[in-house]
């Protein structure tokens, strides 16, 4: 493992310190927590998200006016604890209640749920939206369900804008529940991710291997095979993703090409070009696009593609609205 760090067991705290020093105009931390809060707190519903660390810029990079009110940073790849989430909820409430945006992992769901219970005991209105955009996992009652991955960032952005516009907690919950059903993501990895404290990658791929359908914590995918060209990868991802939509009539969609950490921007753009070409074979009109590192998996090489249904123009407006955050 080669990393520019100090103590591997302190890496989340060290990163957080650096982040706060670098962005003291936008964000601050609650003392003695790993909770990042926006300095600017209008009287609106506060959005709270978070999860394990290692997905930078998610989630702290999306804290600020027009997106999240606060982000809770867990240990590397480990859901944060309820007391930390509770602190975030308390710091995010201005009387209009708090909406939790939670990625669908057993740990996150349970820890955020417990925090919600604790906050409600303190008289704060809390609701939550569960993001489960990763179609690599089957959504059956026999599994923990689909995982929440890069599409989560689009939920932050859209609900963040609507919260700023003054929508109520109930409205945001309702809009959010519908929204997450229209966001779908699929990822590929060229290498595993190395958690600093573990010191070795979660999985290893041969020099000519890739894996389709990996999660953002090195969860296994659905197929391992020889490294394909960008064109072939885009074909597979696009074909699987468009199946999630009804494309009898031309549908307005948005695209998010997300790097997993170690993949250069150059490759993301090469891939984006192939995605656009591939989509010409399908009944869609691309009205929004975003290319970059938004929800990473530490130093994993690879990328994910997210599609979002933007037939509802308020979603598109929300995506295009200006924000004051570190990493949108």
């Amino acid at each position, binding site marked *: 493992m080669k990393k520019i760090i100090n103590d591997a067991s302190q890496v989340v705290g060290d990163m957080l310190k650096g982040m706060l020093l670098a962005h003291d105009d936008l964000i601050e931390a609650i003392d003695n927590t790993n909770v990042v809060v926006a300095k600017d707190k209008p009287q609106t519903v506060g959005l709270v998200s978070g999860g394990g660390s290692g997905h930078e810029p998610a989630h702290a990079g999306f804290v600020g006016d027009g997106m999240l009110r606060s982000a809770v940073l867990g240990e590397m790849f480990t859901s944060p604890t309820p007391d930390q989430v509770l602190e975030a909820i308390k710091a995010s409430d201005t009387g209009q209640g708090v909406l939790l945006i939670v990625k669908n992992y057993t*740990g996150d769901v349970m820890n955020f749920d417990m925090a919600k219970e604790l906050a409600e005991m303190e008289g704060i209105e809390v609701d939550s939206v569960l993001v489960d955009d990763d179609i690599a996992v089957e959504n059956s009652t026999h599994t923990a369900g689909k995982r929440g991955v890069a599409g989560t960032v689009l939920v932050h952005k859209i609900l963040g804008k609507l919260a700023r516009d003054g929508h109520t907690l109930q409205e945001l919950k309702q809009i959010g529940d519908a929204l997450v059903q229209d966001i779908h993501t699929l990822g590929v990895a060229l290498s595993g991710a190395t*958690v600093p404290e573990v010191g070795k990658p979660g999985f290893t791929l041969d020099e000519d291997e890739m894996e389709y359908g990996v999660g953002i914590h090195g*969860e296994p995918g659905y197929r391992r095979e020889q490294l394909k060209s960008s064109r072939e990868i885009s074909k597979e991802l696009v074909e699987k993703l468009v199946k999630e939509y009804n494309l009898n009539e031309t549908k307005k969609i948005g695209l998010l090409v997300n790097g997993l950490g170690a993949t250069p921007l150059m490759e993301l753009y090469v891939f984006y070009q192939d995605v656009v070409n591939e989509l010409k074979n399908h009944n869609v009109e691309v009205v929004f696009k975003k290319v970059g590192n938004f929800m990473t998996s530490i130093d994993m090489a690879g990328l994910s593609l997210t599609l979002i249904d933007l037939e509802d123009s308020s979603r598109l407006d929300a995506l295009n609205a200006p924000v004051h955050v570190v990493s949108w």
Partner: protein
Amino acid sequence: MELTGEQAQRWILCFQEKIEKNKAYLSDLDQAIGDGDHGSNMYRGVQAVKEKLNELEDPTTEEVLKTTAMALISKVGGASGPLYGSAFMQMAKTAKETTELPELIQAGLEGIKQRGKAELKDKTMVDAWAPVAEALTNGTFSNDTIDQAVEDTKPLQAKKGRASYVGERSIGALDPGAVSSGYLFTALVEEVLK
């Protein structure tokens, strides 16, 4: 079979030692079908528990269980934090009424099931807790109960938690949460039931 506060304290501190000793093993088990952090998650938790418990003087059973619950909830995170936390929280609540061991462990099991919604044979820690709770209640408990319960998670396919993502590939591996729960019950045998 009442659990005194002093016994409870020794029980949990013995659990801490077992987790510390098997930290790497638990993570390796989790690496196979999960994300490889169950050992470090649990270790982070029981270290905090140890610290808190050592601050208590002559605690009641309820105090020990509640202190353990709070420390685990606030230090572990992941899936196992809320699950172990809920187990000890339910035990602490029950301890207000009774400190009978079978009732306590049964309450812990209920806490886990309520929080995690897992059923028997979903290949989770429930598969360690349920047979132990039952055997304690029926008076059929032996050391073998624990080993058997843990071992029985091997042939199961995971239906809950991170291991469910690997589908059939989870068959043949021990469930890490069941193994760590096994340590909890072995510690109980060594410190209380011996």
